[in-house]
């Protein structure tokens, strides 16, 4: 994680993960596990906003490929 954050439209927080910073690993390990998992998921597929997509129907069954 570079630790570099910036704010867009006030409500958006951008933070870039950089796994080459081993000094940050202890900090990441202390991060809230829900937040940490989301950041890792975003790092794995960061470009998720460029293609218009359906919001998805409001059931909870869509993400079967996204198991815990």
């Amino acid at each position: 994680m570079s630790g570099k954050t910036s704010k867009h439209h006030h409500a958006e927080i951008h933070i870039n993960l950089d796994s080459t910073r081993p000094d940050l690993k202890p900090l990441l390990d202390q991060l809230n596990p829900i937040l940490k998992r989301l950041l890792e998921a975003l790092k794995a597929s960061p470009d998720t906003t460029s293609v218009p997509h359906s919001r998805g129907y409001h059931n909870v069954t869509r993400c079967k490929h996204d198991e815990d």
Partner: protein
Amino acid sequence: MTEAVLMRDPMPSSSFAPGNPPLTTTFVLKIAERCNLNCSYCYMYNKGDTSFLGRPKFMSTELATAMLARIASYAQRHNLPEVTLVLHGGEPLLIGHRWVQWFLDQTRCVANSTGISLNVGVQTNATLLDEHWVALFTEHNVTIGVSCDGPKEWNDRDRRDFNGRGSYDKVRTALDLLAATPGAHWGVLTVVNPETRGSAVLKHFTDIGVRRIDFIWPDFNHDHPPPWPHGMLANYFCELFDYWYDELPSPPRIRFFESAMSLMLGGRSECDALGLNPVADIMVESDGTWEPLDTLRVCGNGMTRTGLDVRTHDVEDIWAVPLYQIGLHNEELLPQVCQSCAYHRVCGGGYLPHRYRRDTGFANPSIYCADLLAVLSHIHRRIAADLDKIRAAAVPA
């Protein structure tokens, strides 16, 4: 269809290439248009829409065959490798095991012959969900969404049968069965009642073993506002968020919260109640008509009717339907107060049916605007505080 009301929305200038709107990959199939429950808040039957009375109770195999062929050809025309089909209702299991077995065999045949991956899900009240159903769904990799509102005393307030009997006991049996079934893909949908406590609802579900939950904002709009004062839902969601975020050793996935956090962090929404995205999903009614988002029927009796039959119309024909166009262009209809809001990209105006007002159509903030803003601000404060700790410690050398 209340065409005159819809047309009061300024028809948006298209931000998509002509004839090339965002392509849905989700189809919600109303295979049974009756239910064995009579939930007080049901958008299908108890929010003023009576169009179901003119449709068959169940989708015929002839219609389902035609529908699958249309969806497959649509996917092929647009090079979509994967499509999701959600068995829905009413209560879809009322159609019977044999019909669903036939349908799953058909989808497998269509998938094999076209090379398109057809993922199937089902949204059920689970009162009929037994070992046979779970075995069938697990064998076919069908994902199962169960509707349940929490502990018995809270679930049975609204989720009752036509004789007034609560549904909890049967649903609980089904949830325990699912929790004990290896390989089952399942989760729970709960409609929020802010007179209850979110943390208690969540604890109830995690004690059962639920790993995926979504909490749904009740379907009200500017014509039919919610019965609770502003702030009650915000308090519910903030208390729920803090419990989920802070207290649970192994927190389940909660789609609404994760979508909000993801949007704040530059990602995408996985639920249709948040984010600036087109509402593009397509319904298929039991009479074989293509329709826009089904919850929009809370905005007016018959509003979602199109007359576009799967036997005579391609999927793309719905693109020209005014209400479907509004879903696609809903971002452009947001009023200035939304466009200038700090949370505009996260909130997206909230859930489309909650924006409706008879005289102004969908060009309004959500009826839950104040509560949404309070919840999203709360989430933002919480994660920003956590990330600030890292930022402070991680200034590049």
